[in-house]
């Protein structure tokens, strides 16, 4: 079997059985990068030397029996908003264009403890604000299924790198769909865990009450294995949750007998492409045939999720991004008169248009006179949305729907109309508002040859139900995303 065709778990097993060395695995992805990185631009930084060096160290630890986990020796890509000690971390922004962290994020440390080899940092929408990876200050990333199309965003580089064989799996972050939607557009598996599952320590914040780190990978087995490694209680993140149920791989069971699956009618209305609808409902039918109890229901409030989200996310962003002032790190303007002018000029030159748009909106909704009408109102609607999900999960184990209304749009079509772009987040965004786990996996290919994503949503801390359902569906669906399946 070609190394690049292996999943992360398959590769680790092959390394353990001495069929493949860590160095061979690293060299295989580096060679693939040489072939395709120029076209796809998945990475902001590739640390070739560091990866080769880590390969030797990790191999020694595996040989010595110190590393025995299911991901030991597997090369991974990290979204460029997670701090990596000694490795450039830009958030795809000019303002952090020269930032080299002196510490690593907890999720990255957890991966390293499990024997991961860090390949580099993947491209993203600037500060994770966008749905296409086109707002990056370091060029657009292209979709490996068709380079005329976007990979989705904001974790577009991570999703594209997995799909292009430029890594075996990747970490992304999801504030409003930023793992699930690019996973869907690039035909890979992505999971946004329950809020608090994975430490946000070292993740450069966008919307702190919504942000969550999660995996992008080749299949559901990899997803469960990665989740086991990155989920942890971390005293350095005060919203991190104590948990003793992180044995996610025990949910890799092919069985949905009696699983109650709810299909929100509101997710299948206007705006949803017929081909996406058909593929997603096809997946539901397949699960029903395996014994799941599938039922339609009214989730309600769906159309209020986007305005709620953009109010809260922009408010939190305006506050979080205040730290970029040209003093402690990052970009400082060359000419200025006094302190305030330096702040303003550094920020205005350092941030791109979408980031400025959201900082402005956030500053406005938090300003005195508007705080109650906009920000507090949004927090009240958030409570209603959470309640709607609570009611749904009293009846269902899993909610099933599309990830996005369409497959990947063409490059250059999305940024001109922000509201239209924001509408593309309609099925993913409320999951973040309610803190729920969500999983995205491929369920078909449209007539343009682009992958279609299926979304499974669970109640808080019920990732295992998602993994079990996804694993069962994956078995029914069969292999997906192999090069020979494309076109």
């Amino acid at each position, binding site marked *: 079997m070609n190394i690049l065709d292996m999943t992360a778990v398959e590769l680790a097993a092959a390394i353990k059985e001495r069929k493949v060395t860590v160095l061979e695995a690293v060299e295989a992805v580096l060679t693939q990068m040489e072939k395709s990185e120029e076209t796809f631009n998945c990475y902001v930084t590739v640390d070739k030397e560091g990866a080769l060096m880590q390969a030797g160290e990790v191999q020694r630890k595996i040989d010595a029996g110190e590393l025995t986990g299911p991901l030991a020796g597997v090369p991974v890509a990290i979204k460029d908003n997670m701090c990596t000690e000694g490795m450039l971390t830009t958030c795809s922004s000019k303002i952090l264009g020269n930032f080299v962290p002196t510490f690593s994020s907890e999720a990255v440390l957890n991966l390293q403890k499990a024997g991961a080899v860090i390949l580099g940092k993947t491209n993203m929408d600037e500060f994770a604000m966008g749905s296409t990876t086109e707002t990056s200050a370091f060029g657009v990333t292209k979709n490996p299924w068709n380079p005329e199309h976007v990979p989705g965003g904001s974790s577009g580089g991570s999703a594209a790198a997995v799909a292009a064989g430029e890594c075996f799996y990747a970490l992304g972050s999801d504030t409003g769909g930023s793992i699930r939607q690019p996973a869907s557009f690039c035909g890979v598996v992505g999971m946004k865990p329950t809020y608090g599952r994975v430490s946000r320590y070292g993740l450069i914040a966008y919307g702190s009450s919504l942000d969550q780190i999660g995996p992008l990978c080749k299949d559901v087995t990899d997803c469960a294995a990665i989740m086991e490694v990155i989920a942890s209680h971390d005293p350095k993140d005060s919203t991190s949750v104590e948990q003793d149920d992180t044995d996610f791989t025990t949910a890799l069971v092919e069985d949905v007998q009696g699983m109650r699956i709810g299909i929100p009618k509101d997710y299948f209305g206007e705006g949803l492409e017929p081909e996406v609808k058909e593929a997603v409902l096809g997946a539901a039918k397949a699960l029903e045939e395996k014994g799941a109890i599938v039922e339609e229901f009214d989730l309600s409030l769906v159309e209020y999720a986007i305005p709620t989200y953009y109010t809260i996310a922009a408010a939190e962003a305006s506050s979080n991004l205040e730290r970029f002032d040209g003093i402690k790190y990052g970009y400082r303007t060359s000419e200025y008169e006094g302190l305030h002018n330096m702040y303003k000029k550094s*920020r205005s030159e350092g941030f791109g248009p979408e980031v400025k748009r959201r900082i402005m909106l956030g500053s406005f909704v938090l300003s005195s006179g508007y705080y109650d009408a906009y920000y507090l109102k949004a927090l009240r609607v958030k409570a209603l949305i959470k309640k709607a999900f609570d009611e749904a999960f009293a009846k269902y184990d899993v909610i099933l729907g599309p990830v996005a209304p369409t497959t990947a749009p063409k490059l250059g079509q999305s940024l001109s109309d922000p509201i239209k772009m924001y509408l593309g987040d309609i099925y993913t965004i409320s999951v973040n508002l309610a803190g729920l786990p969500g999983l995205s996996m491929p369920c078909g290919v449209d007539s343009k040859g682009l992958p279609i994503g299926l979304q499974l949503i669970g109640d808080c801390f019920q990732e295992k139900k998602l993994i079990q359902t996804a694993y069962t569906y994956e078995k029914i669906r069969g292999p997906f995303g192999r090069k020979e399946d494309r076109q």
Partner: protein
Amino acid sequence: MANIISDETIEYVGILAKLELSGEEKEQAKKDMGSMLDYIDKLGELDTQGVEPMSHVFPVKNVFREDVVTNGNIREEILKNAPGEKDGMFVVPRTFE
């Protein structure tokens, strides 16, 4: 468009946001913010009387720890990324005469 953003508002928000926008950027920002607020006004359709604002989805309380220093002197690391550094301190423009 229901929400008309005035020049004064954009100036004021620019101060809050610590952003200096060009004339063209200001015009665009007025348009963008107006249309976003029109969209957000949709939330007004919902009766939220008596609903507590939810800042956190879980009943998270303050997380306390003992006030004990666990890291050593990391001044050098902290200053590593500073755009301006002198004698172990950040360099900033003169703030008062």
